[in-house]
Structures are given as C-alpha cells and as structure tokens.
C-alpha cells in the first residue's frame, strides 16, 4: 500500500529540480510538507526557533544597553524588578541583576552566544563525524576498526563529561585565565569532540551499504573515481538522517554549553551566555529576586523545546515507520 504514496523528497534532486516551479510544487505536495502543515505544534516550534534566531541576530538593535560593556552598567540600577511589578523601572523590561545589567539585554546577548556555540559546535561535530565516517566506511579495515573503537569507547561517556574534561585540560594548558573569546572556542571544540560519533556511525553505515551496490561498480567501470561516487551519490542519501541528528544535536549542544557555563566551566561572568546568567541568577533566588534566573531560564527552555519539537517532527516525518 505504501507504494501508492509519493516518495519523500527532502531536497531538490536531479529529477525534481528540472524546473524551479516544478520543484516548488513537489515540495508543497511532499509528505514532509504535509506533516508539517498538519502539526500545529511543529509550526509554532518553527516560528519560535526563527524568532530566537532573529532576536540573537538583532540583539544589539533590540537591547537597551550592551551588557558586556562594564562602562554601560550602573550599580545604582542594580536589582530592579521587572517593569510590571511595583518597583519596576523603565527601560528595564525584565528587571536588572546585581551589577545593574538589564536582564532582557543580557538574554539577547546570551542567546547569541548560546546559538553561536551551539551551531558552531554542531558544525564541527558534523564535519568531524562525516569525515571520519566517510574514511571509515570507504577504506574499511584497520582504520575503520580504529575509528569504530574510539567511537564505541566515547559513546559510553556522556557528552557533558567529555566537554568538562576538554574544558579542564584546556584551562590547565592555557592557564586558568582564558579570555572570553578563547573560552568560546574551547566550548565549541568541547562540544564538537563530544557529539561526532553519531554522524560518523550513520555515514559509515550508508557508505558500507552503498559501496557494494552495483551502480558503484558500474560507475567505477566507466572510470568514475570512487571518492567522487561517494560524494555525489552516497552522501546525499544520508542527508536526511544527518539533518535529524544535527537538529537534535543543536538542542543538546545548547544544553551542554549552558550546563558547562552553569557549572562555572563555560562562559565567564563578563560575557555571559544563558547558562552563565542562570548560574548568576541562582545566587539571588533565595533573596526573592527570581527574575534574574527565571527569564534566562525560560528563554533557554523555550529555545531547546522548540528545537527539540522540530527535531522530533523531522525524525518522524523522515521515518514513516515510526508514525
């Protein structure tokens, strides 16, 4: 019965992209788009995710101050509660923290850092994983065994532990006082090194399967170099699963960054990410200054929830069996 259903087309491929409008029509008619339209939750999640990205991109235009610039902070403005409460003061919509930092502005800038670290971490993990997966799958043998072994061992350790270790070692090697940008780079590396395994396994699996297929042999017979075949034919086939992994990993990467920062092993107080803001705010929770921790927390939870919803939907849409 399933053969009556139009095959999934996530991306324009050779067949569908012959004409631009034809491709659009196909995309709008695809099962993916259908399931997207049918799930209101997914549409909301997509909208919220886009909103968060826009907020991060236009952070400097939307905020009332640059929370990273100590010169713009005034201690007399510290610990102001949100605007709608009795002690609220304009322009501090969501109140201020103990340094007089506007919580709303800090969230926008923190969001930017969280997203940058998350996206770069996922890109690094993806690049690393796909490359290693291609190498393992294509060459096989000893190198394949080695990569698999490393992946196996690493898979038993939670990402957060690996990230913490990388972070600790980096601190030790570069000295305890890393500047904020270097910390950011360390975080990206830590996340990239923690999440590559899934990509590598997925890509390796597909390469192994495709490698032995007749069309590869045929392509080799007519003189196409094997790496070209892998890149042109095998890699595109794995793009669906990779996209699902990447989406879910983005949420995980953002959580990991926030957790590291919360644990004091991530972004410093002078250039706080959402996790840092929550750590700072947590100290004021007992004093009843809930807004310092609550709003960054809500922003973080909302962001991760939306991305996870997108990821869940994408996984189900690409894998009709699970529906």
């Amino acid at each position, binding site marked *: *019965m399933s*053969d*009556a*259903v139009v095959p999934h087309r996530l991306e324009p491929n050779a067949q569908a992209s012959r004409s631009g409008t034809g491709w659009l029509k196909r995309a709008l008619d695809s099962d993916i788009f*259908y399931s997207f339209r049918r799930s209101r939750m997914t549409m909301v999640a997509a909208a919220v995710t886009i909103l968060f990205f826009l907020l991060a991109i236009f952070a400097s235009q939307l905020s009332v101050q640059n929370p990273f610039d100590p010169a713009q902070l005034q201690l007399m403005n510290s610990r102001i509660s949100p605007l709608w409460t009795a002690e609220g003061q304009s322009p501090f919509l969501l109140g201020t923290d103990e340094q007089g930092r506007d919580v709303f502005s800090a969230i926008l800038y923190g969001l930017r850092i969280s997203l940058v670290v998350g996206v770069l971490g996922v890109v690094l993990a993806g690049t690393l994983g796909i490359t290693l997966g291609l190498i393992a799958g294509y060459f096989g043998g000893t190198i394949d065994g080695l990569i698999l072994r490393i992946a196996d061992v690493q898979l038993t350790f939670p990402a957060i532990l690996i990230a913490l270790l990388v972070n600790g070692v980096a601190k030790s090697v570069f000295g305890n006082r890393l500047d904020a940008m270097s910390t950011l780079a360390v975080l990206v590396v830590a996340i990239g090194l923690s999440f590559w395994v899934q990509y590598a396994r997925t890509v390796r699996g597909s390469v192994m399967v495709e490698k032995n297929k007749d069309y590869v042999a045929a392509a080799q017979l007519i003189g196409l170099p094997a790496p070209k075949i892998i890149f042109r034919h095998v890699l595109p086939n794995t793009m669906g699963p990779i996209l699902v992994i990447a989406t879910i990993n983005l949420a995980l990467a953002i959580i990991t960054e926030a957790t590291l920062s919360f644990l004091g092993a991530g972004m410093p107080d002078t250039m706080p990410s959402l996790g840092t803001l929550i750590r700072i705010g947590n100290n004021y929770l007992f004093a009843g200054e809930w807004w310092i921790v609550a709003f960054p927390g809500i922003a973080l939870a909302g962001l991760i929830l939306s991305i996870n919803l997108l990821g869940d939907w994408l996984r189900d849409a690409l894998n009709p069996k699970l529906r």
Partner: protein
Amino acid sequence: MTVPVLSVRNLEVEFLTRRSTLRAINGVSFDIAKGEVLGVVGESGAGKSVTGLAVIGLIDPPGRIASGEIYLSGTRIDHLPPEEIRRIRGKRIGMIFQDPLTSLNPLYRIGDQIVETIRTHMNLSETAARKRAIDLLAEVGIPAPEKRIDAYPHEFSGGMRQRVVIALAICAEPELIIADEPTTALDVSVQAQIISLIKRLGRDHGTAVMLVTHDMGVIAETSDRVAVMYSGRIAEIGPVQDVVQNPLHPYAKGLMGAIPTLAGEDKRLVQIPGSMPRLSAIPPGCSFNPRCAFAFDRCRVDRPEPLKHGSHAVACHLFDTAPGEAAKETAA
C-alpha cells in the same frame, strides 16, 4: 445442502490513506464446505492475504471491512465486537502465517505458547493442557515431543517450527484453518511435508482449509477447489481439476500457462504481459483489460461479475452469454 463452514459475501476491504481510499478487496464472494480445501491463488497484492485476515478479523487500521458479510457455519462474524471475534480466533478459526521463523515468540518455550493457547480456549488444567500439547506436537510430526516441548523456538529448524505453528493453529480443534503462504518461506524439500500435513489434518478432523498461496503447484496438489484472484477480485473459481486443465478467464489461462509441466516440454511457458495495476490506479471496467489479449470495448467500461459457467464461475465478459442480465451467481 449443508451450511458451508465459511461463507464470504461481497466482501470489500478498504485502506484509508491521506490521498485516497484504496480498495484492496472489491466484492469477493466464496464458500468453503466442511473438510474442503479451497486454494486461493494470485500475484502478490491481489488481495489473497487480506481476504484471510478479514475473515479472522485482523484487518488493522487504516484498513477496514467496508461492506459485505462473513459467515462462520451460518453465524455472521464480520461485525462482532473485538472480544467476541477474539474468542473465535484460535478456537474456531486457526491461522498459519508465512514465516515460521518470526511467528513464534522467541522468548517463550514452545510448550508454554501451546499451553497458553489451549488454556485460553479450552477449560483444561495446566497438566491436561500440557498433555494435549505433547499429543498435538506428536500429531504434527515433532519427534520426541515430550522432550521438545520445553525447547525454545530458535532450537527448531524452519520446517519443524512451521509444524509447531500448525500445532498452535489446530490446538482448539478449529472448524476452519486459514493458511497464508504456509510453505513460501520453507525449503522446497520441506514444503511437500508441510502441505501433506495440512491436507492430512484437514481430512482427519474434517476441517475446512483456506490455503492462500501464489504457488499453483501447491494448489493443484492439495486443493479441492481453487479461486484465482486478480487485483482484489475473484477472476475465476471452480474445482481444481477443471480450473487447472480448462481455465476460462484469460488471466487464469495465462496463470496456468505459466506453470512448467513435465509432459509438455516442447511448449514455451506463456507469459502475461505487463503487471497487476496498483491499487491507486485500477482501470475502469475489468481490471485485467489492459493486459488482456481478448479485451473488447465493454471490458473497458463494465466491471464483469462472476457468473456461473459449467462447474466454474468466471468474471469475464467473454463468457457472459446474456449481457445486461444481472444474473449474479456464485459457485457454491
């Protein structure tokens, strides 16, 4: 005439997809008498298995029985509440599936699975059920059943596992056995044994058997009557000898022509051009018309109903002697 064990009348089964409703079974009618073996043949996708599942009430959503009636020994069973049809399954209708390797739960001893089934349907004690289980295993030809009863499914070969599956299907003395491709997954050497086992059990217990297969050889060997299915309909139904030796429907002709025989070695095997239409693209009129060498105008417009023709019933306009007359009749 006695009441047939199974009587199916104008059965229609639909599958709802998001684009359309696909009709997997479209107006199928047939009877099976006590002790009779009805073979159901056709290409994959012709609706053979779905018919079997419909009878036993195992069509799962998005599929459903859209219309028609199913009678078991005169009682209508197609609209029973789930709990009542559940009581009929296994007790009055036994089912054998295609793949014995996956039909048994790998984590339970086969004895436990048989005893469980017996005790679900019969009021027997644990010991009595176990004794019956051993007898059943002996009857289906498992050597040393009192020892093998405590083995796990993976400790049996494919053929032996199918025997266990058959023991499970007959453990409550059903009136009807539905065997869905019972030999397809087995080695050729084992196939014959399983077929003769099913045949013997049917004869010994007076059980009616609905044997679904795409293997004409199996049908010819076992069945009393045969129904040839094509894209959700019965093309031709009749006594097995008559249908095999003198098929009427062009599709049945093609099907019989595609069987190699030992005698006619000089004959080329006949091939039917094209393939069965997809459920989403069934042509109007007779669904076989695009592949039929004898198709004429009426075949492209009018859907033929099975009409009695000698010992057969055949759904083909070529044999409709009185066009327009809705003398709908089915072979009993």
